[in-house]
């Protein structure tokens, strides 16, 4: 980031607060949120206060769950384990050590964070339903253990919170105090959720949820990002659990570690809109009062009724509104709100200045492969390939279909670990190093595109490019400025707000290049970026690749478009059957007998009399 842009961003944040408060999106949200506090306080009815405390608790739980279930797309159905851990830790610390719940709840949160990390790390690689099942299994294990160790937890009989009144002990005879705390927790949770959503972490979580491979190529460590989400979510859930236990004054394993409640919390998010900031609150506000009223009116007759309604609503929502209320109606409501006073302002867009010129001596080795061998069962896809990529060159890789070109790329970018042989990249201090993971390669400056394009379909074009830009620019505004510059370079500026899944293939190929380019790589691995482009787009791509090289980036490109690759490359490597059969100047290589044979067959070579 240049000094100029740093100064610019601090200037906007100075007058930012007032500017934000006059933005209708902000003041409408704040007004709506304050209703959760104002309605019960004005009414003064104990029943309403109870209902709103419950709303605050469940909205906060659902908002916390949404960080993992929505943003990260990891559908935890065992989230109440963190709630229970917070609750039991706090209650036991009061009972045995006389520790105030204000401190105990944070100890509970830390324990929940540790448990979340221990569970999350191994389970994150499980696919959708199996992740959900494993979280259910963990919840059941913890619940059964809580029942088993009677001496510690009170077992099935439960545990009563020591009733010492006052703020220090979080137990009150005046129920409005509970409402203040519950509302505070709701604000805290929504604040954290909003902060994540609008930060680099939020974008990264979306990227990981949408496409793990493309996220890795953008230098994102999938497990780190998910781990952060689950730890934050678990801590918030534990804090809320601790408070709720103080409110209920009674803990038993069946309600503290309940699968049913875990599902309910997830359901509120789904109804409101998975992965949205306001969704979980909205879902809770709609459903909880109905359930509480039904319980109040019908009493024991309603046994099972609210669960039946919950289940049915859940099925209906998945069939009719899978994006939830916010996901479906959000954009429309947002346009209405923009018509209010002060609305519709768009901050001026900033375009980042051109990229620094890369340093390093031209022609020095920047990436080397030594005797690479890659075997898939009996098939040898890469057979003893040694390539040295020199800084500043454009290296073309050609070869017939199935020759093993993409497999080679996958090894050069860390997506495949070679069976034998090594890949090494020039590190920051000039030494050659081998990163351990694809995101490690990306951080060292190896940027790659995918032959089968991997856009983040639900993100806009500019957001897709920002995912790449975040690698070197953690600040959202800076990343956006860089992304705008790159979008202009590849000719996607006009489509910057289009959702990526709506782009035609030619534009998707350019987006693929743009996202990689935004990560400001030293080495750019391009896998058939000209396939699917029309004539004029191809010309533009050739020009683009040249101009990228002129900024000092080293390019290595797999291509089937012979005319383009021959005119572009300084050097050509030909791969056939996993082996390197020719290497050298483009004009020499095309005349090589082995190369013609590989493409056109032996008969052709003989007939032409080479």
């Amino acid at each position, binding site marked *: 980031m240049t000094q100029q842009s740093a100064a610019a961003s601090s200037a906007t944040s100075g007058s930012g607060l007032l500017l934000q408060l006059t933005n209708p999106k902000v003041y409408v949200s704040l007004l709506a949120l304050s209703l959760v506090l104002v309605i019960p306080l004005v009414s003064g009815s104990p029943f309403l206060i109870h209902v709103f405390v419950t709303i605050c608790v469940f909205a906060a739980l659902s908002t916390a769950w949404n960080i993992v279930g929505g943003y990260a797309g990891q*559908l935890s159905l065992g989230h109440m384990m963190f709630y229970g851990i917070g609750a039991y830790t706090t209650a036991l610390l009061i009972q045995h050590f006389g520790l105030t719940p204000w401190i105990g709840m944070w100890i509970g949160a830390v324990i929940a964070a540790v448990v979340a990390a221990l569970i999350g790390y191994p389970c994150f690689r499980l696919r959708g*339903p199996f992740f959900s099942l494993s979280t259910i299994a963990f919840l059941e294990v913890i619940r059964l253990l809580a029942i*088993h160790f009677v001496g510690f937890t009170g077992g099935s009989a439960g545990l009563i919170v020591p009733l010492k009144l006052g703020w220090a002990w979080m137990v009150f005879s005046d129920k409005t105090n509970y409402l203040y705390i519950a509302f505070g927790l709701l604000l805290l949770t929504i604040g954290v959720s909003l902060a994540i959503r609008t930060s680099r972490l939020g974008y990264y979580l979306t990227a990981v949820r949408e496409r793990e491979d493309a996220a890795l190529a953008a230098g994102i460590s999938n497990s780190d990002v998910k781990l952060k989400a689950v730890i934050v979510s678990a801590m918030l859930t534990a804090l809320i659990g601790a408070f709720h236990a103080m409110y209920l004054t009674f803990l038993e394993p069946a309600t503290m570690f309940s699968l049913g409640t875990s599902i309910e919390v997830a359901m509120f998010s789904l109804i409101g809109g998975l992965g949205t900031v306001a969704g979980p609150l909205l879902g809770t506000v709609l459903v909880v009062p109905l359930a509480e009223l039904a319980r109040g009116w019908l009493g024991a007759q309603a046994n099972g009724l609210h669960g039946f309604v919950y289940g049915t609503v859940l*099925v209906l929502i998945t069939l009719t509104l899978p994006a939830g209320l916010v996901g479906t109606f959000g954009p429309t409501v947002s346009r209405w709100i923009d018509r209010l006073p002060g609305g519709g302002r768009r901050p001026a867009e900033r375009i980042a200045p051109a990229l620094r010129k890369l340093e390093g001596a031209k022609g020095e080795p920047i990436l080397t492969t030594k005797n690479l061998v890659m075997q898939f069962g009996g098939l040898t896809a890469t057979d003893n390939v040694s390539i040295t990529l020199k800084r500043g060159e454009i290296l073309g890789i050609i070869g017939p279909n199935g020759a093993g070109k993409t497999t080679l790329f996958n090894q050069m970018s860390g997506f495949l670990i070679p069976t034998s042989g090594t890949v090494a990249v020039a590190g920051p201090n000039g030494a050659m190093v081998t990163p351990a993971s694809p995101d490690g390669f990306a951080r060292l400056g190896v940027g790659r595109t995918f032959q089968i394009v991997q856009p983040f379909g639900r993100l806009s074009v500019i957001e897709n490019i920002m995912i790449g830009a975040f690698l070197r620019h953690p600040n959202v505004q800076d990343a956006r400025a860089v992304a705008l510059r790159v979008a202009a370079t590849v000719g996607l500026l006009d489509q910057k707000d289009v959702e990526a899944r709506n782009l035609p293939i030619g534009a998707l190929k350019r987006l693929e290049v743009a996202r990689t380019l935004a990560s400001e790589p030293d080495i750019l691995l391009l896998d058939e970026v000209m396939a699917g482009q029309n004539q004029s787009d191809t010309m533009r791509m050739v020009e683009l690749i040249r101009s990228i090289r002129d900024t000092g980036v080293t390019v290595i490109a797999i291509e089937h478009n012979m005319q383009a690759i021959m005119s572009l490359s300084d050097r050509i490597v030909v791969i056939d059957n996993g082996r390197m059969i020719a290497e050298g100047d483009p004009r020499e290589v095309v005349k090589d007998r082995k190369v013609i044979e590989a493409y056109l067959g032996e008969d052709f070579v003989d007939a032409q009399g080479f």
Partner: protein
Amino acid sequence: MDVLIQLLINGIMLGSMYAIISVGLTLIFGVVRVVNFAHGEFLMVGMYAVYLLFAKLGVHPYVAAVPVVILLFLLGVLIQRFIIQPLLDADEHIQIFATVGLSTALVNLALMVFGADLYSVSAPDLRQSLRLGPYTVLVGQVVMLAASLALVIGLHAFMQTTALGRAIRATAQNRTAALLMGVRVDRIYIISFGLGAACVGLAAALVSPLFPATPTVGTYFVLTAFVVVVLGGMRSMYGAFLGAMIIGLVDSLSAYYIAPDLKEVVYFAIFILILIFKPTGLFGFGRGTE
């Protein structure tokens, strides 16, 4: 020694019960590729149906198997057609929510209709003990073992020898290719889901004499069934059968040697370890869970 052998016998008997419940789950996952969280509730519905036939009409539970299997087949068909099929191309988490929602709705529907009371089918002939030297088993358990073996072998034969079975296997392996070969994939999915549910109908008839029906009986069994299916490698009938036997033995042994209320902890621990370290299942059948 006697105790150990009795425990092993109990384990195998328990295993055959888990096997007969898990076979349908394997079938549905293997073909439709949907993890059916409402599977246990199918069992619950079947058990209430068996109970009603027994209590109102005096039908023996084993005779009740015939109408209950048909009922569950139809239930499966309707659920596949109207809930799962519209969501086949939706995100995985939407499918999870749909079957979780279905499960919640069915449990609570049962609670509204039948209350929380236990309903037992009294079939004294099936609860009789058979003596084998110093060891005992219940008649109903022996029937269950025989039935679960017959079901697994029968389903396997059906899949291998009939045209429909081949179409189901083709669909399971590659939906698009099957479609291109003229297999009506939607219909295969509906039939497979129906068959999976029908297997649970059979299980309900066999389990009813030994276990009372409650709204949550399905939740109790389905988690075990998931453990079994994951252990067996997700898509293999025989894998599921072996997985069920292992869980049956673990259940029986750990209840005695560790603590009765911790047996589930033991097999959930196995479940989690398998998911993490050997996602293709214990025997390497199937393609696993990643």
